[in-house]
Each structure stands twice: as C-alpha cells, then as structure tokens.
C-alpha cells in the first residue's frame, strides 16, 4: 500500500506568509510582480489611518490577470510563471497578513474584482480564507490594482519606520528597481516606479520617482587637484563570463561594476552604513542577493568596489535573502570565475594608480594635519613661555632642562618605556630610582596606577588638585593617601607608610 503525505494547508499559508519579516519585502514583491506583468509604470502608496491601520495600494499597467492568474496569485506553490522573478508562488502570500485583500485587474477586455476578507484572522482561526470573483467586460487597457488593508508584517508592520531614503535605498539595492539587466540587454524592459507615503509617515520629501536601472556615478578617471582620490571613479563595463561545469553545462555570469573613492560612491543611492553595501554582489534576475567579497582577496579593501555578478544558476531562498545552492558545484564554478575576473580588476593599471594616489593623498593629509598640529604646539609653547609638555617624552625634555639649569640635584633618564606604569628609570645623585613620569600628576592617579615600585613621581604640573584631594578623602587602591602639595610629597599606606617625593618641573624650568 502506498500513502501520500498530507500537507496542513492552513499551517503552510501561515508559514509562508510569516517567512517575510521585513516590511520592505512587500515593495520588492510588488515590483517583481509588476515587472513580470510587463508593466511600464508601477505606483505604490502606503497609508496609515488615525487608528494605525495600514493600507498598501499597488497599481501597475501590466498585462493584468485572468482567472487562472488570479488563482496563482492566491494559491500556494502554484505560480504559472516560468522564467520570471517570482516562480515559487510564495511572494504574494505576504499579503495574507492583513484584514482584507482587494484585487482589481483588467486583462484582454475582462475586468475582475476579487476580494478576500480577513485572511490573517481566518488562518489563525485554522480556516482557509476564500476570495470572491466578479467578472465584467470592459473597454479599457490592461492594468492591476492591489489593495492590502490592515497589512502587518514581521513583528507588526510599522510604516513609521519607513522613510523615503530607506525605501529608495531598498528599491535600488534589493529589488528589480536596482536592476543591472539594462547593461546587458538591448531589449531591456524599462519600468517607472513611484512610491508615495502618506504625510503622516514621512513628509520630509517628495514621493520617490525612479526607474529600474541601477546607474553608477559618472566616471572620473583622472581628476585635477591635490586631493582627488575620493572623487575618482572608473566603470568596468558589462562582461559576460562563461562558466563550464564538470558535466559540460555552461553558465553565463554577467558582471558589471565600478571602483571609486568615497565621494564617488556616495553618489549611489545608498542609505545607512556603507560597509554593508559595497563590495562584490552575487545577483539573480539582476537583483543583488549576497556579497562575495572574497573575490577581491585579502590585499584589497572591499569598499572601493561595487560589482554585481548576475547568474541565473544561483538558487535563492523563498524570501530571496540568501543563496541556497552554496554547497553545489554551480556556486563553486561561479565564484571561481568571479575570483579570476576580480583578480584582473585588481591588477588593472587604473585601479593600482587609484590605490597609490589614495595612499599618497592620505599621507599628504597626515602631513598637513601634522603641520597644523605643529602650529598649535608652537602657539601653545609661545603662550606657555617656552615649554609645555603634552606627553611623557616632552617631560623628559623638561627634565633635561631642569638638570642643566643648575637644579639642586641632577636627574637623568637612564631608561624609558612608554606604556609601563614605572615608565622611567632615573639616574640621580643618589643612584638609580624607579619613577613614574607624567605630564600631570593627577593623570597618574586617575589611571589608578600602582605605587608599589615607585621611588619618585615626576610631572610637569600637579594638574587637577581637586581630583587629587578627592582621592585623598576616599582612599587610593584601598590604602590611605595624603598629598602634601607644599613639600611636594605623597604619603601612602596604612601600617607601612611610604613617602614618595614629587618633582614638579614647571616652576623650576620656567624660572
């Protein structure tokens, strides 16, 4: 006897609809469907009423749907699209997370109005929602209008989190709106996209009006000027790489990209952290999916690059967020070929020149900043009457002057280790001493450095006397401490008391 495994349909719908967590995915789904319907115009409106209910309205002038198409729209796993962006029949199920879905569509002179009421409530009530169909003959061009009332996605769809720049970035980075197909196809299917948010969501700018071409900033191969590397930009024109698999199957990888400095890259429609956006993208349907920055090797920094490598041999997870055939030979062959191509880009003379120029300019900037720091130091030194240490090394210089200017004793640095708590070994009239040497004495105590091995404290100035007094009034590393500013001494310890002399250089050297 053979038995057929059963599917719990309600749970399946809930699962699939819940796969889509990001509210922006509704925009991707809408654009993909409109593109597959050959639309040249698609308008998306997102509104929120006073009671917080969300309504999405998606309109396009594509070829519309007949009853079969509408079945695919509502059915699960029953897409009638073969080589289109959506082919699993999962995407539109995101709309089930709503209070009502209304579809109005015209195809070949037939208008269908279809309504599904309370899909999400019914599913959660273990009931499959139904939809109505009303058909009329009309004399108007094909189109589709989808209304999704009371839409919720992920943890609850909050349109207030949406902003125009976030949506624009998403369209160009994650949807067909950022397609690179136009670089490769002469008969490219262009689509105008308009997204409007109700003013209660974002009133900071006009609605988004864009097309479905991802364009690079203009080339700027060799700009004039002293600091120009950030503006430099080179396009690496579309190339079709052929990948042959072990079983002789051939795949095509369509690569296009640019290399450029920060200013050039900022002209791309990006939002948020750049580190998450640049690099080498693997794409399917010319929509970016995942980055594969390994292709540029460890010698190069990925953020100079923005390349898109499209291959239809990649297989994606239902929500298009991940490549799911990574362990297969197809993925391996694609990435191997991409590695080779990107090695060529990295060996391109222009790129090498760009990197060199960038390094040189960074160096120049550092010199300029050094110059300005030098000027500041000079000014400070003038103001302070000749010497004003800002680090331990300069305190050593002050100490040299102190000893040379007929001080009561000679103190010389015998050894100095910048980061040690006991950073100096002194040679004094009384032999060698361990010392802590700081610009301000208060810095030493604020760092809570141990006093155990210190014979003497040397500073340019005592620093913040209040901070020292505060320490004196509590304790220092669990032991009593007293600062005698008059006689320049620190008295430290409970049962075994120690007195540590302080050498303050500012007054002795200046006078």
């Amino acid at each position, binding site marked *: 006897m053979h038995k057929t495994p059963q599917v719990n349909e309600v749970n399946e719908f809930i699962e699939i609809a819940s796969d889509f967590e990001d509210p922006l995915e509704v925009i991707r789904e809408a654009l993909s469907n409109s593109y597959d319907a050959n639309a040249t115009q698609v308008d998306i409106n997102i509104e929120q009423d006073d009671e917080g209910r969300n309504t999405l309205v998606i309109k396009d002038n594509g070829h519309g749907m007949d009853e079969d198409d509408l079945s695919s729209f509502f059915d699960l796993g029953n897409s009638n699209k073969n080589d289109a962006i959506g082919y699993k029949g999962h995407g539109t199920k995101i709309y089930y997370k709503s209070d009502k879905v209304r579809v109005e569509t015209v195809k070949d002179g037939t208008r269908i109005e279809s309504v599904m009421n309370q899909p999400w409530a019914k599913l959660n009530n273990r009931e499959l929602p139904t939809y109505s169909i009303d058909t009329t003959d009309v004399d108007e061009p094909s189109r589709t209008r989808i209304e999704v009332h009371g839409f919720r996605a992920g943890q609850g769809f909050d349109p207030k989190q949406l902003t125009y720049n976030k949506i624009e970035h998403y369209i160009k980075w994650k949807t067909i709106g950022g397609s690179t197909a*136009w*670089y*490769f*196809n*002469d008969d*490219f299917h262009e689509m105008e996209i308009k997204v409007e948010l109700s003013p209660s969501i974002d009133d900071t700018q006009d609605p988004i009006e864009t097309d479905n071409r991802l364009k690079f900033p203009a*080339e700027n191969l060799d700009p004039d000027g002293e600091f120009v590397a950030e503006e430099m930009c080179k*396009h*690496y*024109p*579309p190339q079709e790489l052929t990948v042959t698999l072990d079983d002789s199957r051939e795949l095509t990888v369509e690569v296009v990209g640019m290399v450029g400095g920060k200013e050039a890259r900022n002209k791309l429609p990006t939002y948020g952290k750049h580190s998450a956006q640049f690099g080498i993208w693997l794409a399917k349907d010319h929509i970016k999916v995942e980055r594969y920055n390994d292709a540029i*090797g460890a*010698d190069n920094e990925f953020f100079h690059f923005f390349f898109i490598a499209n291959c239809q041999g990649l297989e994606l997870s239902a929500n298009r967020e991940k490549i799911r055939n990574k362990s297969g030979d197809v993925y391996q062959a694609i990435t*191997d070929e991409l*590695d*080779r191509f990107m*090695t*060529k*880009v*990295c*060996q*391109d*003379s*222009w790129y090498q020149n760009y990197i060199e120029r960038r390094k040189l300019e960074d160096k120049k900037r550092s010199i300029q900043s050094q110059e300005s720091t030098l000027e500041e130091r000079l000014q400070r030194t003038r103001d302070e009457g000749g010497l004003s240490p800002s680090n331990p090394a300069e305190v050593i210089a002050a100490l040299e002057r102190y000893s040379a200017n007929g001080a009561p004793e000679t103190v010389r640095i015998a050894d100095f280790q910048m980061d040690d708590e006991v950073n100096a070994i002194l040679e004094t009239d009384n032999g060698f001493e361990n010392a802590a040497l700081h610009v301000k004495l208060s810095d030493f105590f604020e760092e809570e450095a141990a006093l155990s091995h210190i014979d003497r404290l040397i500073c340019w100035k005592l620093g913040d006397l209040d901070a020292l007094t505060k320490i004196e009034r509590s304790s220092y590393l669990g032991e009593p401490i007293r600062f005698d500013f008059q006689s320049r001494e620190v008295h430290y310890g409970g049962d075994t008391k120690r007195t540590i002399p302080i050498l303050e250089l500012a007054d002795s050297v200046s006078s």
Partner: protein
Amino acid sequence: MVSFDIVAEAGEARRGQLRINDRTLETPHLFPVINFYGGGNEGALFGGGVHRTVKEFLTHDNEITGGEDYSDLFRGVMTSISSLADYGIREKKLDWYLGNEIREWDCFSDYNGMIFADSGGYKILKQGGLEGQDFEKDIDQDKALDIQLALGPDIVVNLDHPIHPDDEFEERIEKMEQTAANAARFAERRDEVDGACYLTVHGYYEAMLERSFDLIEDELSEPIPEAFDGIALGSLVPRKDNVEILVEAVSDCKREMQQRGYEDLPLHVLGISGNAMPLLVAVGADTFDSASYLHQAINGKYCVNLFETVPIDEANFDSCECRVCNDDFHRARMRNEMEDLYQKDILGSVAAHNLAVQQRELRKFRQLIAEGDKERVAEYLEEAVKDQKGFRKFAYQLINERINPYFEEIDTTYA
C-alpha cells in the same frame, strides 16, 4: 661559431635559435640538469640511481626507453663541475673523468645535444672547493674553467659568487666584485673556448642588476657583447617560489640589457624551471636549467602539470599526453608492475615524464610566439594559471601591464 637569432616575437616573449658550432637549439628551452659522472665506472654508465636511468633516456638505451627516442627532451643539458665530486670519489677517478670529454666516452658518444657546463659557483663557494674522498681542491676561476673545458662543453660560464637575499649590502658588493673579477679573467681566456661563453649577473631588481653590470663592465677590457655570447642571471634559487620576485628580476635584467645594448644576447635563468617558466618567457627569458624534474621524481612526485604534482601511485597516466605515459612499458614501470624493478627504473620513467611536461609547455609556448600574437600568449598564460589562486595575481598583473591590458581597450558607453 656562436649565433643567436630571434625568429619571432610576441610582446616581450621571443623565439630564437641558438647555434653553437653545428648544434642548434630552439628557444625558449629548458636545460635539464644531468650528472654525467655519478661516481661510477664507465661500464656502469657512470653511476647508478635515477641519475643513471635519466642518462639511459638521454643515450637511447633501448632496454630502458622501450625503443622510443627521447632525445628531444635532452637537446640541451646542464651539468655542473661541482657534481663531479658528488659521490665522494677519489682524486684518481676525478682525473680519469677529466681525461676525456663527455662525448669521447663510448656511452655518451651518441649524445648530440648541447652541453652547458656550469661553474658550480653556489656549491663550490659553499663548500670552499671540490672535495672528494682523498682530496680537497680550491677552485678559482682558472681551475673552474680548466675543469669545464675538460668536459667538452658547448657553453661555459664564469665562476660566480651568488648573492643571497639576506646578504648585507657590503657582503653583496664583495660578492659582485669577485664575480666581476672572475668574469674579467674568464674573458681573457675566451679564445680557449670552442663554444659559447656566458656571463653571470646577479640581482633581484634593477638597481642591483645595474650595479652588477657596472662592476663587470669596469673590470672588462672590452664591451660585454664582444667577450660574451650570453647572459646568465643567477642567485634566484633562494627565491624560486616567489614568482613576483622572479618576474621582476628577469624583467629588470632584460631592461638593463636593452639599455646597455645587449638585447641580442640570449638570457639564461640559472636554476629555475616549473611554474614560473611561462611568465619568465613572457618577459623575455630564453633558456633555463633545473634539476626539479629529477628531484620531484626522487621524492615520488609525478607532475600533473607545471603547477601540480601527485604521489606517483595516484597518477592518472590516461590524462597525460606525453610519450612516457602513453607507452605501456613505462606505465608498467611507473606502476611497479614488472618483475625485479629497481626504484631507479620506476623513478627514472617518472623523471622523464616530469621533464616531458616542462618541455611540452615550452614547446607550446614556442609555437605561440611563432604566431606572433600577443593575445594568444596572454590567453595561454591566463588559462595556465586559472586555478592557481596565489599565482594568478602575478600572472594577471604581468598580462595586464606587459602584454594585453584587460580593461583599457573596452568601450565604456553602455546600451
């Protein structure tokens, strides 16, 4: 009579014909290193082991070669005077070896390829001379040349003092000065050589090579092209695995030669072969020498191509086009399927195969250069390194900068 004619060029790669007396060698070419005297007697074909089997290939010993002629693998061979004492021989035997030129021994009388007799600078200077069981000989330029000439060579080279990448500057200069002094003494005895005289230069980049050439020119009483027939670039063995350094050294040496007007002289790269060879040919190297084919075999390694080796028992002979692998006799030997096989018989066939792989690549390259098409040369190089991740970067850099830029020619106006 010595002549070197360039018959075709593709970019900086060139195909040439090196004629020395009545022998001609098509370049680029690899001189496999041969130890003619393996410490043995004449009857034992001068020693045993894999060295002996390789010589049996070289001299068409039918029992060993299975009746096939493998002489094309040995059109030119390199032998070093330092190898004479490899087996701790007695002085009497050394004198006996040097009593006849190589081709005067019956067992080598059929060998008609070119013999490049190296002065063995690296080994001799490391050991302080030639050392056998009952003798120690200090070797200077005159003694080295005497021994080289006793072998009856077609090409000889001055005794050099190879530099090392870790040498301090002063140490390097001292070695270069000694090499230059040797070169001058070598040039004085030019008339004693009935063949080609090569001059060694040393350095890893232009400034070093410039100094090496300058020091030699200062010592010589005549221009380099009048005293020498070829340039041999040395000291690269410690850097043999760093293709970037090798390419830079050969490329800079070529540039120096061009600037000084020596570009018509053949450039030999001492001690290098294998995966770097195609790239070095691409920047203008003409000949190479190496014992790697032999050392790989001795270590049980079978070359799949220029980049990869596998243990001999994992080798797939069906996927190799060489004659050794397509001969059932050698297959049976390499698989150790015949009775009473010595290790030298197994590994000797492997060594011949390994050499065939390298010679085959150079033959392909010669054909490509003959077509004079830079793009085909670039394609060949690209294909050869496509799966070599670490190597690829340098190969692509070379192709991009020196042969065929990847992106500059492409129209950047889109649809």
